[in-house]
Structure formats: C-alpha cells, structure tokens
C-alpha cells in the first residue's frame, strides 16, 4: 500500500483513480511504471534547400532528428523505421514531389548517453536492436539523418513526409 501511495503521489494521477478499487489501483500503479515512451528531442530539419542541389543531414549533425526512448532497464528493443521515398509539396498542385533517401549510415542508436558520437551506426532501412541503459538511466537515444534531392524544376513550397519509428519489446 505504501508503494501504491508513493507512486500515485509521484505521478500526480487524476483524481478519478482514487475512486477505483484497491486492486485496480495497484495494477495501474505497476502498469504506469513499466511503460515505454519516446520523446522528440530534435526534429530532422533540412531547412531551406536549393533547387538542383542535394542536401544531406548526417545523424551526428546538429540538425539530425533526435529521440529519447525511455523503457525498462537493460531491455532490448527492436528498432525499425518506415521511411518515405518522396516528400510531397503541400502548397503546390498535386504531383509536386521531392526525392528523399537514407543510407547505411543514416541512423545511430546509443544507450543512456545523449551524444551520437560513439553510438552504434545502422541503416534505418534495415533497423537495429537497441538497448535501454542500466538503472538509474533506462534510456536509449536515436538519431536520424538523410538526403533530399530537389530537382531544378522543383516548385517552391513546403515539402513534407512521414517517418515511422517502430519499437518492439521482446
């Protein structure tokens, strides 16, 4: 019961929790602490690019995408990406697109340390098995770079695509 109170106090859970049965509270308290979450530390940002000139962001660059994953200490997690091949101009007429590519060294993962240098490089297209850090720092960091290739005829506007990160617990 002490444990339950401590956890509920730490989380600041909504008041409706206290209206539930003791058994449910206990289960929920354990549930919340054993979770996994991901936070975007920095977006992958190509900024403004020039027509006809490919632009590459390395995973070690200050403009690379960066994410912090928090989970169970020392647990392995399978990391995979679903990556776009084209970005769509959301301001121009349909059919206006820009190629985007990712190479064998476009992604990095690292346990517990928020610095890509020294992390494990991997191909985001094939994924990797990462690992959370030991207590008291059960985190894993991910970085992603890539290359966009605007054509000489590319129309001005905002080009967008979606990157999907999948995290699989064993």
């Amino acid at each position, binding site marked *: 019961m*002490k*444990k339950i109170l*401590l*956890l509920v106090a*730490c*989380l600041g*859970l*909504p008041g409706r929790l206290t209206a539930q049965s003791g058994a449910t509270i206990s289960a929920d308290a354990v549930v919340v*602490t*054993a*979770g*996994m*979450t*991901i*936070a*975007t*530390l920095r*977006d*992958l940002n*190509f900024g*403004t*690019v*020039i027509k006809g000139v490919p*632009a590459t962001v390395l995973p070690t660059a200050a403009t690379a*995408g960066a*994410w*912090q994953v*928090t*989970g*169970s*200490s*020392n*647990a*392995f997690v*399978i990391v995979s990406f679903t990556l776009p091949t084209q*970005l769509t101009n959301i301001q121009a007429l349909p059919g206006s697109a*820009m190629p985007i590519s990712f190479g064998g060294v476009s992604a990095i993962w690292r*346990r517990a340390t928020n610095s890509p240098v020294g992390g494990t490089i991997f191909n985001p297209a094939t*994924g990797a*098995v990462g690992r959370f850090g030991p*207590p008291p*720092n*059960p985190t894993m960091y991910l970085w992603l770079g890539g290359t*966009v290739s*605007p054509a000489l005829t*590319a129309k*001005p*506007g*905002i*080009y*967008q695509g*979606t*990157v*999907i*990160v*999948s*995290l*699989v*617990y*064993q």
Partner: protein
Amino acid sequence: MRALWLAGMVLFASASLAAQGVMVAPHAVFIDHSRGSGSVLLYNPGTEPVEVSISTIFGYPTTDSSGNIRLNTIENPDSTVPSALAWVQAFPRRLTVAPKERQTVRLLARPPVGLGDGEYWLRLVIAAQAGTVPITGVSDTTAIQVGLKLEVRTIIGVNYRKGAVMTGVALSNLRAQVVGDSVITRAKLERRGNAAFIGMIRETIVDSTGAVRAQRMGDSLITSYQSPIGVYFTMEPRLASAIPVPGLPRGRYWLRYEVVAEREDLDPKVVLKAPAVRDSVRLVVP
C-alpha cells in the same frame, strides 16, 4: 527498494518528457482464459494532445543469421502457429489522449470453441503522431522548405493463456570469444512446453582460480551480465558484454551461461516458472 526504483522511474519519465509522445504500459500483456480480457494504459506526459491508433499483428522475436534479434511477422498466420490475431480485439481503435491524461485500451478475447490448452500470441501496435517538424519562413513562397512528420509505433506482446501452460528452454551450442573490449557469446535456445519462455540470460566470467571477473555496464562494474530474453520457438542470440579497462589478462577463463525464468520488468505472477539451464565454455585471452 523496488517501490523506490519504480517511483524514480516515473519521476524520470515525467521530467524528461517535455516533448511529444505517449507512454505505453505495460510493455507485455498476459490474458488469462478465465478473464478473457486485458488492458493497456496510455499516458500523455506532454503538453499537446496525442492522436493514437491501435492495431494488431501476429509476430514473435527471432534471430537472424548474425544473431541479431528481430520481429518475425506473419500477415496471415495459419494453424501451424499459435495465433490469437483472429479473436482478440482492441478497443478503441482510435483515440486522443489529452495532456497529462491517461486512457485505457481494452483487449477483448473471443476464442473459438474447443480452443486447446496453451498460449496464443499477437502483437499490439500503438501508433502515435509524435510531432511535426516546425516549418519556418512559410510566408517566403520562393523558398523550398523540407520537413518530416514523425509517427511512433510501440509494439508490445499479448499472450493469451488457456488451461495448463508450461514452458522451458533447452540450451546448446554455446560459444564465446573475446573481441576487442567485449565478450561475444552465442547459444542456441529452444523453447519447450506450450508457452513462450520469458526470462533472462546471465553471463559470468570466472578465472582459473575460480574468482569472478568483473564486467562493465555503463560506468558500473558488475559481476554478472544480464539480458532479458523471450524465446518463442528457437533463437540463437548474439550477446556482447563489455570488459573493464585494461581488459582481461592473458589466460584461460570460463564463461558461465545461465538462462532463468525471471524478469525484473514484469509482474512475477505472469512469468511462468521453469527450471534454469546452465552451461559453461572456455574463454581464451591470447
């Protein structure tokens, strides 16, 4: 102690989640046939609402030829695999989790009549829009701006258990070698019984006098390297543990390899008991 650790974990997660995302808990769901349902909690620690969609797939961890662990997914599982994909459903399928709020996803099982005793699996996919790249200079229509949206999919296991379930693991073909500052091991693990083996691998290095040699995890020295493992059929994981500087002196050692049905990150009630299996292999530092 465990309560303090858990509380610390919550505080850590709460403090570090200023950005988008949704916490998914637990990271493994076990449904008993007598109850027929389960639940997953979603918590939004951020300051913006998070849109979430829920789906299910069939898959289980396995290893590739290099020993890397990956998820083997089967789009249309047949009767040769213990799939619960066709009869476990998740509700709701789409939801929005408000900032600092939590919501529950219910799992409801409708198993077929005559379902045999055993464990049946599926995977729950929780997809959340975890952020959008802020685009600057939108008013500058002569420029080309590039941004990427991010979607995060958290994939957790769902194990449905009916009747007598038992598990175990057989260990064979253990090998180990020192490569640089790491000890690399591989071993064949074959599941026994009718349920997945959920447990831990422990590795200990012992020198010729019988003394345990330290290994390194982060900045800490440990006497035994541990790795969680889930053996659903057969796998041959490659593990790499670090040796502290300046490394092991030249000589012969033993690597003790142990697979136990224990998991610190899961409720002990859901971890099926099974006998530990052990083996040792000679480790030579030239």
